[in-house]
């Protein structure tokens, strides 16, 4: 046995060395880059804002709930993402005092809502965010605050509340004295209690406060507060700590926010969650406290609002960003919560930075992006440039161009066209429903009917034609238990073969509580088609009695024992799969009459029992193939669970990969090639090109490597892959066809030219466009041009050459392709080679220069594409077709081509004439040395040359119109036109041709 094993090992080893197999990773198809659609107009949750003035500019670092870190070097006028290779959930940021280039970033947000993500440690940059290194605290999952000691910048304190969904020792207060190289936990209470907040004395920096908080979430309940919660103080940099109690409420406490007055450090403010929550002030450096009066806005939802900020200069001025923005001008004794004019900031505030060099200037981070005030919070403006929206789901219709739809965390439901002139921008997005948004679906028979929802199944039907919205949530009927609707209630459609009484096609609309409901009339009537499909465990249904802990909090976010996912077989409407949040996987094959729980087979693969079913995918190619993703993070288990059944759900197999991170949200099988799979988790998008045997993380598709991918869809007409990210908006990878080709290809081959999809004449729309003043952040445009995809096994050191041949096998176009390893993508903009243009004179920024770059577009027909790489040629054919719907008939394209070619030819004839002229001048110049007659000829020739070429032009601000310029102007106009000249206009070409003939005869006359 031992020997046999050894031999196998040897064999494998040799096989490895003999033939180095190409192992693909996502860099092999980096040309399949995603377009981002945003939106920025409805941004996402901001968790941290830190700023500093450097080189006279306000530099900002903005941390987000699921979109990484963004930097502005101009006071928020523009932002760049700079954390795209790392965990996208940011808890806290800190800039080293006085050094804009050293920044610490704690991952894992600490606003402990149900949908909060998870971090993987602490990072640091020393070059302004261009490069980051992880420096520890990997298992803390959440970091709420980082303080760098201004007196000793190597001393850093980090507070970690720690894991939300489980007990853990990886929480508490950490300290480094070597700028983050090593860490010590300097204060710890117990496995249930973490450090929520810290505050440092501005001058006696060994004096700090640390608030500890006992908290825990379960899928069905939240608990804030307990005996572990307390406020601590140290005067020796954390060596010894005192528990502070004098004047603070008795009994179990919850989350405590604490802040020290920088102008008067003896004064300290704290908001204390307790049975009676309150705002407290200390005037003796935190030793004793007294309660101040406060509003509900000051004390509400401590788990979600934990920001309290003193003005850096004014000892009386305090800000409390919370549900609304509140400010005090008397040290916290009274509060103003009004906004006067301008934009009212989105509610739910989590971050505030006050510019210490200009305390009028405030940056406020909310659930809906960043707001800027230039008058201490009296009025605000929205920064429309951060596309960090948190989508739960995405869907698409089948219009041209198709629209995308989806719901945003705390930010309504939205729709936008997938492409728009100049790129999809803020103004292309339209809201189609309020509240927190989740699922949005369109009617399968009338795309003007759209269904959206807010939390807890509040579904509405919106008629886009009339603009009217109707609430259509199923009502409790006799025989029903009280309905339990998930926070993120599924709304799903499915095709139907049924017809209405009047013969109109129908489709199925589903929504689910613990019951599945179906409607075939746009939600006017609902039929309950199942019993309670959940475990109906009463112990998990006590939200209204005890959710929230010390502070009651019941907003449907903890509703449990509900249906979370519904999928109807597109080819058999009687076959429906339903997954619940408590681990039931139910199947009906008779349209809901009978149900079978198929989950047991999944637990046999090693997935923990009762794990939340997060998505179900029925293969559109083989209905026996079912995929299921499962999410157990609410029990503290962040593993990636994804299983497949090849026998209709009787037996299951678990997909595993060392690449996987993050709990799984969604899996999608390609609609054409069953080997091509897409998996979205809380920490990444993953591809499989071999049916799930191996997986690779998406790193090179223009998306964050650890993107929070909540939903994935394929738009069937365009084969586009749509990605709903929970922190960076919607992404689209256009046309999966080349990836399908790659799946089939032998990637060990040196090069492969893939079949080229035929192209219908089309150009990217140019108008109408919105005002550039309103567009905010703009996504990339979709490119309309024949696209050549080829694969190279290795990066090519030589230029890859591409040639286009017409039907007569005449070469009409040469251009260079890219030579990157893996898939290459090159557009052929339907043109031929530009003409040879007459040389001479200064031609920068003139139509003369453009003439040597632009060229006429080809007529419809068949073309041969030849790709030459590494000394070998590869060929494919493409048919270019007319497209009357877009304004391109066979005739118009042909006429435009002919007109362009007349001018193309004129340019080349002129170039030849000028060449001959130059040669003649050279010869005559030589002869003129001894011949006076030749001197006169030379003058004549020179005058002639000045009539053809613009030789007096010396600057781009000097237009000179000689014959070459006239030809160039008309040539460029026709070569770039999208419709031919009218017969009358075309006569302009004839004039130039006649003029050329005269020039040519004059020349021959002169040299006779």
């Amino acid at each position, binding site marked *: 046995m031992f020997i046999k094993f050894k031999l196998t090992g040897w064999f494998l*080893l040799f096989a490895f060395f003999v033939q180095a197999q190409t192992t693909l*990773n*996502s*860099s*092999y198809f*980096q040309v399949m880059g995603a377009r981002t659609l945003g939106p920025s107009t409805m941004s996402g949750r901001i968790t941290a804002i830190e700023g500093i003035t*450097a*080189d*006279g*500019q306000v530099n900002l670092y903005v941390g987000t709930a699921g979109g990484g870190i963004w930097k502005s*070097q*101009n006071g928020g006028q523009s932002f760049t993402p700079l954390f795209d*290779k790392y965990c996208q959930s940011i808890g806290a940021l800190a800039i080293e005092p006085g050094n804009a280039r050293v920044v610490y970033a704690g991952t894992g947000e600490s606003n402990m809502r149900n949908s909060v993500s998870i971090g993987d440690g602490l990072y640091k940059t*020393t*070059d*302004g965010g*261009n*490069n980051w*290194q992880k420096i520890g605290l990997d298992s803390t999952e959440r970091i709420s605050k980082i303080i760098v000691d201004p007196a000793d910048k190597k001393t850093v304190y980090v507070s970690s509340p720690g894991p939300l969904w489980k007990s853990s020792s990886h929480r508490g207060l950490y300290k480094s004295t070597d700028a983050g190289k090593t860490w010590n936990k300097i204060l710890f209470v117990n496995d249930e209690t973490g450090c929520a907040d810290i505050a440092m004395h501005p001058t006696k920096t060994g004096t700090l406060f640390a608030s500890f908080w006992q908290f825990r979430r379960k899928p069905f309940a939240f608990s804030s507060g307990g005996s572990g919660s307390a406020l601590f103080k140290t005067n020796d940099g954390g060596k010894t700590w005192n528990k502070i109690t004098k004047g603070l409420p008795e009994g179990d406490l919850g989350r405590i926010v604490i802040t020290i007055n920088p102008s008067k450090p003896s004064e300290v403010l704290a908001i204390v969650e307790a049975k009676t929550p309150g705002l407290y002030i200390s005037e003796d450096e935190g030793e004793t406290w007294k309660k101040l009066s406060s509003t509900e806005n000051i004390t509400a939802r401590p788990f979600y609002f934990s920001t309290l900020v003193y003005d850096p200069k004014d000892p009386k001025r305090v800000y409390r960003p919370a549900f609304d923005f509140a400010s005090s001008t008397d040290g916290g004794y009274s509060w103003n919560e009004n906004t006067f004019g301008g934009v009212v900031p989105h509610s739910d505030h989590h971050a505030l930075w006050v510019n210490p060099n200009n305390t009028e200037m405030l940056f406020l981070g909310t659930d809906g992006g960043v707001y800027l005030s230039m008058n201490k919070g009296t009025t605000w403006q929205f920064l429309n440039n951060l596309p960090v929206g948190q989508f739960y789901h995405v869907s698409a219709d089948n219009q041209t161009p198709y629209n995308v739809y989806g719901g945003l965390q705390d930010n309504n439901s939205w729709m936008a066209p997938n492409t728009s002139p100049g790129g999809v921008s803020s103004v292309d997005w339209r809201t189609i429903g309020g509240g927190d948004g989740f699922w949005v679906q369109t009617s399968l028979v009338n795309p003007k009917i759209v269904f959206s929802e807010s939390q807890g199944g509040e579904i509405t039907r919106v008629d886009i034609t009339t603009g009217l919205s109707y609430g259509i949530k199923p009502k409790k009927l006799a025989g029903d238990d009280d309905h339990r609707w998930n926070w993120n209630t599924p709304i799903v459609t499915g095709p139907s073969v049924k017809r209405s009484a009047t013969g109109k096609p129908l489709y199925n609309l589903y929504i689910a509580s613990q019951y599945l409901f179906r409607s075939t009339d746009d939600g006017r009537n609902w039929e309950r088609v199942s019993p309670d499909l959940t475990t109906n465990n009463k112990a998990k249904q006590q939200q209204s009695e005890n959710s929230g802990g010390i502070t009651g909090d019941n907003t449907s976010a903890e509703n449990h024992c509900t249906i979370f996912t519904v999928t109807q077989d597109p080819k058999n409407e009687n076959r429906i799969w339903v997954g619940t949040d408590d681990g039931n996987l139910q199947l009906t094959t008779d349209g809901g009459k009978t149900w079978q729980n198929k989950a047991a087979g999944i637990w046999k693969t090693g997935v923990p029992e009762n794990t939340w079913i997060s998505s179900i995918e029925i293969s559109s190619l083989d209905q026996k193939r079912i995929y299921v993703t499962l999410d157990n993070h609410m029990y503290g288990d962040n593993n990636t669970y994804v299983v497949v059944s090849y026998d209709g759900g009787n037996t299951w197999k678990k997909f595993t990969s060392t690449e996987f991170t993050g709990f799984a949200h969604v899996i999608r099988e390609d609609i054409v090639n069953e080997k091509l799979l897409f998996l979205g988790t809380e920490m990444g998008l993953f591809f499989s090109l071999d049916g799930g045997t191996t997986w690779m993380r998406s*790193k*090179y598709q223009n998306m964050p490597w650890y993107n929070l991918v909540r939903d994935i869809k394929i738009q069937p007409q365009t084969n586009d892959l749509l990605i709903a990210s929970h922190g960076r908006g919607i992404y689209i990878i256009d046309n999966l066809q080349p990836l399908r080709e790659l799946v089939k290809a032998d990637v060990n081959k040196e090069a492969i030219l893939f079949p080229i999809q035929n192209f219908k004449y089309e150009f990217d729309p140019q108008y109408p466009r919105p005002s550039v003043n309103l567009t905010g952040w703009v996504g990339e445009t979709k490119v309309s041009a024949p696209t050549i995809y080829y694969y190279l096994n290795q*990066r090519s*050191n030589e*230029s890859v050459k591409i040639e286009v041949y017409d039907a007569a096998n005449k070469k009409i176009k*040469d*251009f*260079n392709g890219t030579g*990157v*390893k*893996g898939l290459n993508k090159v557009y052929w903009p339907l043109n031929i080679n530009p003409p040879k243009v007459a*040389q*001479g*004179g*200064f*031609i*920068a920024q003139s139509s003369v*220069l453009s003439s*040597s770059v632009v060229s006429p577009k080809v007529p419809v027909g068949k073309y041969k594409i030849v790709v030459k790489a590494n000394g070998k040629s590869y060929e494919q054919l493409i048919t270019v077709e007319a497209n009357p719907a877009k304004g391109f008939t066979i005739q118009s394209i042909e006429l435009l081509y002919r007109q362009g070619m007349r001018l193309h030819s004129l340019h080349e004839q002129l170039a030849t004439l000028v060449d001959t002229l130059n040669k003649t001048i050279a010869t005559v110049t030589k002869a003129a040395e001894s011949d006076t007659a030749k001197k006169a000829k030379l003058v004549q020739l020179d005058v002639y040359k000045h009539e053809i070429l613009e030789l007096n032009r*010396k*600057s*781009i601000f000097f237009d000179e119109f000689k014959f070459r310029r006239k030809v160039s102007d008309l040539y460029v106009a026709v070569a770039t036109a999208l419709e031919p000249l009218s017969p009358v206009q075309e006569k302009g070409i004839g004039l130039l041709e006649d003029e050329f003939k005269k020039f040519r005869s004059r020349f021959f006359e002169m040299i006779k």
Partner: protein
Amino acid sequence: MKKILLSLAVLVSAFVTAKAQTADEIIAKYITAIGGADKWSKVQSIKIEGQVEVQGIAIPYTMQGIHMKGTRIDAEFQGNKIIDIVTPDKGWSQNPLAGKASLDPISADELKSKVDDLDIQDAFLDYKAKGSSVEFLGKDEEDGNEYFKIKLTTKNSNEKTYFFDIKTSLIYKIEGIVKQQGQEIKSSVKYLDYQTTDFGIKMAFKQDQGMMMMVTKKVTVNAPIDAAIFKAN
């Protein structure tokens, strides 16, 4: 048999162990990979002839440099002469395509950003003696491969991040920062197609700058160059 097994084990372990690296180890390997310190320290002048390839158009150029004294680039595109001269205390440039029609002095800031390029030997060769400092920034991944990153800061405070290929020890990518009006703009160049020159030093014959590719055709080391070319006429 035993012997073979052992050497194979060594070979395999070389594949699997990721040894902790220091910046100086990485730099030493790199210097060896590009031909060694001995050869590079003898490079006193260099002439590089090549072309800039952009959108299918090739623009020939010549770069000439005398170590620490001056560098000059000449290129021509459709009759437009592009010139770039750098010396330790002055620089000039001309680019009619960018609206600079005559050879004019460059700003002090621009000179500061270019003056390190006078070191035509490698920036990492005797970097300490040159007053530069390095910081190891860990491992990173680019284009599907793994790299060690080192930040080099020169005595002129120019800062660049170098990506060293873990397998070949050669530099794959350099990221730099251009500062304008308080805004830092990141630039990056990928170094491809390493070839050994007649002189015995190894250089990247292609520099991929994203929109354009600088392609080297010919390198001449230590041929006489007239220092008079390093000034405006």
